[in-house]
């Protein structure tokens, strides 16, 4: 057997790869490297040749900016809460939908429906529901259950603003998490449960010793994908906080990036923020994969 290929063997392979590579370089790698370059400059959009090289000062400015720190904190809190809740609820829904219940198909569709709704439309709907003076949520809390004595101005408070944003993501995301878990559940052989029942394992034991370990690959996949999605939160934040209202305390990292780039025309700073986010995402994904691998051993 020949173990090393000759160069001429590589030519057809390279040619096959070329269309994909060209698109990748043209539309992904090229812009990425270009924006990496922008992040080191005070970038002039009309006359890039007049841009001033700043070194790492855009990155330093971001890391020492209290607005960026707050945006990072908001994004981290949002990601942690939504990912954990979506996984727990998603697993619960998947376990229910995996039973042979009447109307199972209906419920599968019903739980998945929010996933395919438009982010913009449901963000606006949640904004209406949480309206501080005429919203449905205040009506229920205040006039029906009397939990509160006066109307809550959800979007006027930097912490309470996150409540509708987080609830929206959970409502919209549980269906997808459930579908991934459901696929995982259906790949677990039924014999394992039969054997466990014979050995006297109750449903809780079955969940703990059979279902959960065998869903590990689904869990790893979901954790990585959901965390990346959470860190990239943009639409709901942008629409519901109107870009950081109040007092720039409710930005996500991406809304801050958008504002720096497109409303203040500070392209270098915006590019630096997106690279910082990229670095966060990269390291967090690395840590997740490491931890989940360890857990398996």
């Amino acid at each position, binding site marked *: 057997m020949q173990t090393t290929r000759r160069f001429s063997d590589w*030519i*057809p392979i390279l*040619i*096959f790869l*070329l*269309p994909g590579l*060209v*698109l990748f370089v*043209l539309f992904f790698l090229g812009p990425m490297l270009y924006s990496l370059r922008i992040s080191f400059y005070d970038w*002039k*959009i*009309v*006359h890039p040749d007049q841009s001033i090289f700043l070194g790492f000062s855009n990155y330093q400015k971001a890391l020492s900016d209290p607005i960026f720190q707050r945006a990072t904190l908001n994004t981290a809190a949002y990601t942690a809460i939504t990912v954990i809740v979506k996984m727990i609820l998603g697993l619960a829904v998947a376990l229910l939908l995996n039973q042979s219940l009447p109307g199972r198909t209906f419920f599968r569709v019903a739980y998945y429906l929010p996933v395919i709704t438009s982010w913009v439309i449901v963000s606006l709907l949640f*904004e209406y529901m*949480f*309206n*501080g*003076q*005429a*919203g449905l949520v205040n009506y229920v809390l205040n006039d029906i259950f009397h939990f509160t004595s006066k109307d809550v*101005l*959800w*979007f*006027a408070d930097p912490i309470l*603003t996150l409540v509708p944003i987080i609830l929206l993501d959970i409502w919209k995301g549980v269906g997808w998490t459930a579908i991934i878990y459901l696929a995982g559940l259906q790949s677990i052989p039924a014999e394992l449960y039969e054997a466990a029942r014979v050995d006297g394992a109750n449903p809780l034991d079955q969940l703990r010793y059979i279902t959960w370990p065998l869903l590990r690959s689904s869990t790893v996949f979901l954790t990585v994908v959901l965390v990346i999605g959470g860190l990239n939160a943009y639409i709901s934040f942008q629409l519901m906080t*109107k870009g950081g*209202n*109040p*007092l*720039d305390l409710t930005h996500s990292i991406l809304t801050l990036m958008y504002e720096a780039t*497109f*409303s*203040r*025309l500070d392209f270098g700073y915006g590019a630096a923020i997106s690279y910082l986010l990229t670095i966060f995402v990269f390291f967090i994904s690395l840590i997740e994969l490491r931890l989940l691998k360890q857990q398996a051993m």
Partner: protein
Amino acid sequence: MKTNRFTLAFVSLLATCAILLAACAPATPAPTQAPVATEPPAATEAPTTAPTEAPEPVTIQYWHTHSDAEAAQLDEVIAAFEEANPGIQVEFTRYAYNDFKTALLTAISGGDVPDAVRMDIVWVPEFANEGALMQMDGNLPEFESITSDTFPGPLATNFWNGHYYGLPLDTNTQVLLWNIDIFEAAGVSAPPATMEEFAAVACTINRSPAETRYGYAQGGTYFWAPAPIFYAMGGKVTDEEITTATGYVNGPESVAAFTMLKDLYDQSCMSPNLLGGGIATDAGHAEGTYAMIIDGPWMVDIYKGNYPDFEVNFAPIPTGPDGTTSSVVGGEDVVIMDGSQNKDAAMKWAAYLLGADAQKMMAAVGQMPTLVSLIGDASLPPYFAVFQEQLKTAQARVPHPKWSDMDNAISNAYQRMLRGEQTPQEALDQAATEIDALIAGS
């Protein structure tokens, strides 16, 4: 097998070339009609004599954010312009306001810019500072004759660093809107004329026992919202030359204006919606939740569509302590992009838009003209009168590329004082420091 692989590789190479070529090719409009075979193509009839002065047909690209009704009227203006200027065609592209800046920046960075643009007056210094706009004075032949007839406030919004980078296309300002039903129910017969009356009326009308009601409401804390009251009470953001904000944005008049607003808020005479997430001012005013709001001429059309039975009543902004009224100048300017290949044709279009005919045509759909000579013109809608009167005293926001940041500094100061974190003086002192830093940094 070998040839098969080679063929595939060849096809793959072709595909790559196709992708690259497609990306580089200029966009060609698809032919709308197949050529009719029986007719000889026009090109075969070669002209026997070369045309002596062939006017190269020029198409200029005009970008704007007009509404439906305005865009329909713009079609008429374009038709009239094209008739008067054979050889020049105007193609327009319409954007949503919120996407417009991004679209312009994308075009600029891609090097493929529109020729003329109608943009928000506060963007002009920003884009001029980036070098994206053509200087009007010294280039536009009609510059002197046009600007001698425009309102000074709107014209000033085009000025940056010693030159003008646009022409005031349409203008607007904000006046007081008062809900006559609420006023009558509360036993108030006329809109307030002074700020003292304004505060008193706002608190007379607030929270009638049966329902939640406020005397006054503001759309948010962004500067545009409190600006009419701020300017009417003598407030200033910076000095004329834009060298400092200290003593201006935190001066006694500015502090008095924000103190009055904070007092109205604390006494529940002003709705808390301005902090975020409440009932919108336009709906609240028509539905009787807000007795007074301050807004622009477009409210006529908005109410016509959403609340056809609602009677809109305008009044001038109440006068401040020195007895004068004021407000804030809004509107759009027409600019010519520095990267335009058709500057001459674009200048003709810009000059045409500033002519009395085009201005009157657009006035029919609510665009207020910027020409002094059109004051009192019989063809203008009657509700323009109060706005044109208000425009005589209305002030432009600081024409500076860092205005967005200055706006944010004042907005945050306003938020902090409403939340009780700082007194109006402390909050505005901080804003002054922040704005001074912005001026120094540019």
